[in-house]
């Protein structure tokens, strides 16, 4: 069993503003040098979860992103092809996938394993599963896990390539949780199903669990698909989507929102290319 101790989220959807620098300035008077908006988003989200708490130095850091830092890639290409100049050293460094992880590790003084997971579809689920494996194996006692995606405009183009409908609003976010083997003081337990499922398996799974367990769906799940999965069952849905637009790591926003505002248990169902993955969160009594 793995336990969620802290959660923190920063999110926005298309049309809203999110001034990351201004928010950071409420935490610290100076911005961390050489960081760009993507890295700042990572730091800001992690700070919402951890704040000034000193974590054990051995805490592992797992960071997930669906798209990674695309803005820095654009800057590097502009430097080369439009301005005909060599890449700026800091931009090249920031284009590495693990740079955000470095800044988070440095800020929170973490010296353990530092992983960055990139994948289109289920990136948050897979990263949670990796953390769950390491915690269950006793390889790690504690994992700081986050998902970061930055909104890329123009949105129409991004929606097409991400395979989501034109009506869905895109979003961005940085959602973090502190996972541990320790039960004491935990907010919730989390259980990521190890295997992916097909439609009939996910239906059967949903029917097998407690009717009081709520259900929530990822943005890639269409309404007809959701009706098919629920199959006439009277099951309460946890609607987190109103506050958040679509991004690859929105799963973590949904889980964090439930841990913050929900009650009881939640099954989060997500789909990618006709495969399903499920995560179960159970809130623990709060004293």
């Amino acid at each position: 069993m793995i336990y969620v101790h802290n959660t923190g989220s920063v999110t926005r959807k298309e049309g809203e503003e999110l001034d990351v620098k201004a928010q950071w300035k409420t935490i610290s008077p100076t911005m961390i040098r050489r960081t760009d908006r993507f890295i700042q988003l990572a730091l800001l989200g992690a700070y919402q979860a951890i704040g000034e708490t000193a974590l054990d130095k051995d805490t592992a850091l797992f960071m997930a992103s669906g798209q990674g830092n695309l803005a820095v890639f654009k800057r590097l290409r502009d430097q080369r092809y439009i301005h005909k100049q060599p890449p700026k050293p800091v931009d090249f460094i920031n284009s590495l996938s693990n740079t955000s992880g470095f800044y988070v590790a440095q800020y929170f003084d973490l010296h353990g394993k530092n992983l960055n997971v990139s994948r289109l579809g289920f990136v948050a689920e897979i990263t949670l599963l990796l953390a769950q494996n390491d915690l269950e194996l006793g390889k790690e006692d504690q994992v700081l896990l986050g998902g970061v995606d930055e909104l890329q405009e123009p949105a129409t183009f991004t929606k097409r390539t991400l395979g989501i409908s034109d009506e869905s609003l895109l979003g961005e976010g940085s959602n973090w949780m502190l996972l541990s083997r320790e039960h004491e003081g935990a907010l919730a337990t989390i259980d990521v199903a190890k295997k992916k499922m097909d439609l009939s398996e996910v239906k059967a799974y949903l029917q097998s669990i407690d009717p009081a367990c709520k259900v929530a769906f990822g943005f890639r799940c269409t309404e007809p698909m959701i009706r098919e999965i629920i199959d006439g069952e009277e099951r309460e849905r946890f609607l987190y989507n109103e506050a958040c637009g679509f991004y690859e790591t929105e799963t973590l926003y949904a889980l964090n929102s439930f841990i913050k505002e929900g009650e009881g248990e939640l099954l989060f169902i997500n789909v990618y290319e006709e495969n399903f993955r499920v995560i179960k969160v159970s809130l623990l009594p709060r004293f």
Partner: protein
Amino acid sequence: MIGSQDDALKLRLKTMIIEECEKEDITPEELADDIELFSDKSGLELDSLDALQISMGLQTQFKIRLGDSKDFRRVVTTINNLADFVQPE
């Protein structure tokens, strides 16, 4: 005019260094002309990555290309020295 006498040039150099090294909490006026930029006294706390950024700024904004880190250490000492190198007369 030799660079170290040219206040406008020195201001441009200082502004470039502050921008490239993201040291916006320091104003160009606070940066003395004769202080060793990479020493503790400058208060800038610059490291090797800053040297690379400054090198790139010299290349793009001043069309000055420094060969290697040895050249850099010879030229980028104080603002006066750098200005003299950029504008020898």
